[in-house]
């Protein structure tokens, strides 16, 4: 273990159970987790918390959806913050949409902790 400080991951999902699942899996992987309930809340939390190393966001959310959040984050100057999108769609079209919206990658729900870990490793600097 050569890490100095644990990496921080922000999760954005309107479903409390999904947030808890992510927290459980990410904590087990050794990450620090901060949470937000939707896009608007995520932007508020981003402004108020230490900078996360990775953002994981759901797409379908009230107030501001995942695409809206990504656009705001990118425009807000975080061009290189890795962002993974949580999606249940495995179709290429949907993934392409996430990419063109500015996401770095995606996690297909339901996720296995191993797959989650692998997806994070592929994008977390």
């Amino acid at each position, binding site marked *: 273990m050569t890490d100095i400080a644990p990496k921080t991951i922000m999760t954005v999902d309107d479903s409390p159970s999904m947030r808890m699942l992510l927290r459980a899996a990410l904590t087990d992987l050794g990450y620090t987790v901060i949470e937000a309930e939707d896009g608007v809340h995520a932007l508020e939390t981003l402004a108020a918390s230490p900078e996360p190393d990775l953002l994981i966001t759901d797409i379908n959310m009230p107030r501001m959806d995942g695409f809206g959040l990504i656009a705001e984050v990118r425009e807000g100057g975080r061009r290189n913050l890795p962002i993974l999108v949580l999606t249940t769609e495995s179709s290429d079209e949907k993934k392409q949409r996430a990419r063109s919206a500015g996401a770095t990658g995606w996690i297909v729900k339901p996720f296995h902790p191993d797959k989650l*870990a692998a997806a994070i490793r592929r994008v977390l600097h």
Partner: protein
Amino acid sequence: MDLNAIQQMFFQECDEGLAGMEAAFAILRDGDHDAETINGVFRCVHSIKGGAGAFGHERLQAYTHHYETLLDLIRNGSLDLTPALLDIVIGAFDMLSDHVAAARDNSAVPADAAMLARLEAAAGGGSTVTARVGPAGPAATVSEPAATVGDDFDDLMAMLGDVSPPAVPGVEADAPAGWKLVYRPTANALDHGAEPLLLLRELAMLGGTVVDCDVTALPSLDAIDPDCAYLGWTIALPGTASEEDILAVFEFTDACAIALTRDAVATAPVPTPTDPVQVDAADATPAPAADPVASAAPPIDDPKSAAKGAPVPPAAQTIRVDLDKLDRLVNLVGELVITQSMLAQRLTECQMGGISELSDLEHLTRDLQESTMAIRAQPMKTVFSRVPRIIRELEGEVGKRVRLEVEGEMTEVDKTVVERIGEPLTHLIRNAVDHGLESTEGRIAAGKSPEGVVRLSAAHHSGRIVITVSDDGQGINRARVRAKAIERGIILPDAILTDEEIDNLIFAPGFSTAATISNVSGRGVGMDVVRKNIQALGGRISIQSREGVGSSFSLSLPLTLAVLDGMIVTIGEQTFVIPLSHIVESLRPTGETLNRFGLDGALLDVRGAYVPVFPLADHLGIADAERDPTKAVLIVVEGDHGQAALLVDTIRDQRQVVVKSLEANYQEIDGVAGATILGDGRVALIVDIDTLTARSRPVRIPLAEAA
């Protein structure tokens, strides 16, 4: 938070989602096909599918997938939401509820083959998506826990430098030919925070080594754009690595950036002779992958088995408190209320009743009691949300069209009441659809809309909850009710009854029997059982009906079972509490209204109906009570077995009392429902009207049979 708790959260979300869908269908059925409404339905199913997968509810996940596929076609406009299609969608919703319940209770999964076929037929082949069943399988590749990777590029550097190549796990003598992978990141490969080096690190974990680095595209230093990728790599991977795993590394990468081929030259065991570095499985450095995630996997690995045997109860609160703790709190507050009123009484006796602290204490105590009760309160929604489905099933069974209108579903009432109101309410709903509403033809003939309306409402009304089930049907046919009551010996053929009294006959024991009720309303119980259930909850039921216009059943229930509205009466030296829910009226009889019956019995003439007088003192063994009805008070009560006039000395008060269980504190006593402690510290028994009036029953029966 353990997985079970998270799963419980998921089921709460399911309940909320299902309730939201129910509301959306009400809008859609009214013909308002708003895009956001349809989208909301889709989102609910979508979320349930996501959670079902996460918690390993495979059947639920498979079902939601098919359902979602159809909804998606409706959402994107490929399918027009016709009434017929809406019926299928709503039918599928009911089955979804069953699926969720089965997943929650670990009970038998509903047989969904027919519904799946309907969904697929409705989707009309428009869907080519196949169900992804089951949770994502464990990653085939054994990978290193991310936490040990972090920023550490040592392994990567080692690989780039061709020093100490990582071992290939599971190398076998007849391993397949190695892979040759050319990775040339596209110019935008660094966009959105992507980092190609991380992918090389992943490949290193699969046993890959960089055999060539292509620097031809690299411009001179001053021309380098740090946001552009210029390098390309050729990587050799052991043949034991699966193609799927290798390609998975590039999941987020443009497919054109990579080219993966089997190394044709390599036929020898891995490492292949063409590999620049000989990797010997025997003396290779242990790979960082020595500690596979699989062994350190979180309990999420098998959520289903973790959840097995522990059905998750539905709940709508955000804090879960052990019910025992809550009951203890309610109990303590009950004690406090009693102590407070005792204190008030003592102080009043000392002429200190007027001090302001006393009224402050009283206010505080009452507020505390109400707040405590509010903790146990749940919205009626829990019960009401099941009604649309009952109505839909009934529509099919009786062939009537019914529109449900619901009001006040957020009205809160004690958990116990919520739990026990479901059955009587279901019966009333069934009754309304089956007996209340006319057939479609009948409605058209009567000039009404062919669609019948059943209204369900709940509201707080002077410290009680009033639930109303009404219909716009034919109303009670009083001539028929009367004829049937005479036929069953409930009333005399020449009895003079008001309309209200006739209406109330349907609650008489023995009015409805198996021979006359359809299998819809029937289910083995009559309206007398409904009333009994309501009374057991300390409630009252009343009917309002107008022929041709409709009927309305009102249930008035206490907000909690821990307190009871009672009439405090004295018999001799003793004090008793009679539950207000059973009391019809109280009166001081005149000589003319009393008729002697048998040796020492008496009948009270209540406007033409004869009610047996029931001296409570005899049954409770009190010696010094008033025996002469004309000098005492008669309280007419309505119990399971009809009416009785209880003979008591005086009425002292009418108030709320805190119910104390006799069974828990002493033992069960026939004729006594419980006890309470009065302000003066004395214990007063609460009279059990049903058991007591049962004893007066023989008086009534011969009367009816004699007719």
